């Protein structure tokens, strides 16, 4: 573990704990390049002893924006095409014919987590960890052809069949990355009809409430910005996502337009330029064995907590910024760990604008000093670095204490673990015309009178097994059948035992009505797609499923719980 002093200096000199006796970072890196390994802890490699890595030794990667292709061969169509996995036909295909096409290859590739660790094999979308960032606009339907090029005879954690879920997407069931819709060139899951080299995911890029407001591509108050995509293969989601199959997917509309110089007076003009002043940050924890290879415990039934903190695939990187505003989109991409991050300068916690939660802009920005994220939650903030002089160094610090897959401790640690060092090193190239307006996005009122049904979901553990309402996930059994367009209240009750369950419901956002009878905190008063249900907590959420029908899932986003059957299938019925 790295050391960190309150004034931000790097701490004591390095200790060398390499089993291989590498005496310097250069030697270790060279070794890694000569013999990439598959990431399997072998005899003698000690687990739980991640080697020391020098903090802030590597720059923060900014995942490339995914570029579209002019055509796909064979051309995409409503029904599963030749060579495609046996999916159901795309519903509403003719209404939302794709205007933009993408081709992605999920494949094994070499990745360097840190210059002092061996370069090693991971699984990534286009071979990248995190995967490329998709940037799309509402009203522009797209299609993503996802090739599965993962090695069939792979040895070690992870299973090479995949089903890609766009988390937060308002998408038809057959394009949602259903857990049973996993495929490879030779195998297919229980809800598909045949194997295939690829799977076409149709993203209409409409908002919820399309059928009531087609002219605006749906209800503009249902807009989501920061989405992420990751694998969702039944029984192996934790390992596959941990091995690298995750990336960002960002959406823009006329309001959150992605142009800080937008002449449209209705545009928010938040800091813009994906990879320039609009920065996605994938926060993840990982563990390495004593030889520096990525380690995952396939046998822990309770969760997996790592030791190293990574941002965008690198351990404790640094990021150079100009003296102006930046938008940071943080996503908790971990299997089991919570994050509670602070921004510190000279040992003091800094304020920033908290503008979005789970990809949804709040009605008004909150002034905050920390962001707490359960697994799969996202938080967007705006930091104004013009407050700091050139040469200033700030740290994004995590203060959660969590050694236990059960969940975070109540007490935080201080100063905490630095995840990212931010160096203010230049004046902005042009005047900073971005702003954080006082009003961000209106919130649709919750109409409780419209609720037709209340359902109760008890999250329990018994006999080492995770259950929702006393049952286990069955991809072919429907556990709830909400009617399209008919609002419901879902009561999420945590049965206790000290477990924390971030519950994710697919297809639509939820509005938290109460936590144990009390209103939720300010940052949770908007829309969310992950609701953390703490020990013994009861959370009531309002939800309505619109525009599509078919099978979806809801599950705990502790991906190990998810893999141990803590999931339900629910279907939207007409």
């Amino acid at each position, binding site marked *: 573990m790295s050391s960190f002093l309150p004034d931000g200096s790097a701490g004591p000199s390095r200790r060398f704990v390499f089993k291989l006796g590498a005496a310097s970072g250069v030697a270790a890196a060279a070794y890694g390049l000569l013999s990439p390994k598959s990431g399997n802890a072998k005899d003698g490699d000690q687990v739980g002893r991640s080697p020391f890595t020098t903090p802030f030794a590597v720059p923060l990667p900014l995942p490339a924006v995914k570029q579209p292709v002019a055509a796909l061969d064979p051309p995409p169509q409503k029904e599963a095409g030749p060579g495609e996995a046996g999916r159901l036909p795309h519903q509403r295909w003719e209404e939302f014919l794709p205007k933009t096409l993408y081709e992605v290859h999920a494949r094994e590739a070499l990745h360097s987590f840190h210059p002092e660790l061996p370069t090693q094999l991971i699984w990534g979308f286009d071979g990248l960890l995190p995967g490329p960032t998709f940037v799309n606009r509402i009203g522009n339907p797209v299609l993503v052809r996802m090739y599965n090029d993962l090695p069939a005879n792979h040895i070690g954690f992870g299973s090479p069949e995949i089903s890609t879920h766009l988390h937060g997407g308002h998408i038809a069931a057959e394009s949602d990355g259903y857990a049973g819709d996993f495929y490879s060139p030779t195998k297919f899951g229980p809800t598909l009809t045949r194997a295939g080299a690829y799977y076409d995911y149709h993203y209409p890029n409409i908002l919820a409430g399309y059928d009531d407001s087609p002219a605006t591509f749906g209800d503009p108050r249902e807009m989501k910005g920061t989405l992420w995509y990751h694998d969702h293969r039944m*029984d*192996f989601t934790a390992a596959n996502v941990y091995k690298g199959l995750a990336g960002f997917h960002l959406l823009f509309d006329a309001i959150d337009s992605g142009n800080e110089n937008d002449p449209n007076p209705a545009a928010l003009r938040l800091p813009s330029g994906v990879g320039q002043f609009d920065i996605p940050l994938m926060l993840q924890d990982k563990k390495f064995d004593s030889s520096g290879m990525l380690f995952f415990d396939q046998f822990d039934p309770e969760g997996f907590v790592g030791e190293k903190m990574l941002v965008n695939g690198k351990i404790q990187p640094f990021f150079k910024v100009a003296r102006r505003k930046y938008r940071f989109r943080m996503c908790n991409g971990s299997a089991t760990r919570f994050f509670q991050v602070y921004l510190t300068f000279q040992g003091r916690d800094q304020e920033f604008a908290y503008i979005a939660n789970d990809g949804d802009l709040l009605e008004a920005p909150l002034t905050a000093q920390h962001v707490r994220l359960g697994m799969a939650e996202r938080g967007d903030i705006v930091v104004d670095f013009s407050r700091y002089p050139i040469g200033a160094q700030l740290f994004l610090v995590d203060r959660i204490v969590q050694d236990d897959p059960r969940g975070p401790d109540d007490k935080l640690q201080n100063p905490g673990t630095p995840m990212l060092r931010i160096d203010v090193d230049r004046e902005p190239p042009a005047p900073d015309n971005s702003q954080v307006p006082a009003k961000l996005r209106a919130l649709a009122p919750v109409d409780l009178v419209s609720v037709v049904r209340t359902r109760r979901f008890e999250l329990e553990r018994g006999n080492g*097994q995770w259950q929702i309402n006393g049952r286990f996930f069955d991809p072919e059994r429907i556990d709830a059948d909400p009617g399209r367009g008919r609002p419901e209240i879902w009561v999420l009750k945590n049965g206790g035992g000290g477990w924390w369950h971030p519950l994710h419901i697919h297809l639509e956002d939820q509005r938290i009505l109460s936590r144990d009878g009390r209103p939720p905190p300010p940052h949770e008063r908007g829309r969310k797609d992950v609701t953390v249900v703490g020990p013994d907590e009861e959370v009531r959420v309002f939800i309505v499923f619109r525009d599509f029908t078919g099978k979806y899932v809801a599950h705990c986003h502790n991906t190990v719980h998810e893999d141990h059957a803590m999931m339900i299938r629910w279907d939207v019925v007409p």
Partner: protein
Amino acid sequence: MSTKRMFLKSAAGAVALAPLLVSASASVGGPRAGYFPNAALQTHEGRKVRFYDDVVKGNKLVIFNMMYTACTNICPPDTANLLQVQEMLGERVGRDIFMYSLTLQPELDTPAALQAYASKYGVKPGWTFLTGGRDDMDLIRRKLGFYDRNPQVDADLSRHTGMIRVGNEALDRWCMMPSLLRPRQIVDAIVRL
């Protein structure tokens, strides 16, 4: 089983723990050679097996669950459900798919007791019940991931795991699922590994 063998078995279980626990891994080991102990166990048919070499190692599908013969709440439905799984998998069980049940009460569940349990349920060949020294069985259980971090829950036999551990050691691919899933669902997941 002869008195002498029974004595040796219980003596080994009670006394000579250290050598068994750190027994040398097989000379040609797969990915989990250093992970699972190569403990000497006994099957319900009275055969001796080494846990890593004979039970785990190799390019085959293995399915583990935990039980004990005196269990009255979880084990009867689990065993009955897994029997249906065995039926559905047909001839593959014993050929490239192997089912194993490990006892949580090795002191009481002798091979003979396990044989009686297997016979009672009509368990067919290819599904083996295993017993051994208490410490070996406990270590194996933990290595397989059948544990609760809460020591009270972990020690409470009535709350023992209802999951099955499924895997292929040569591919080092492992997953876990409830024993009481629909048998077809369990079979579907296993054949896709």
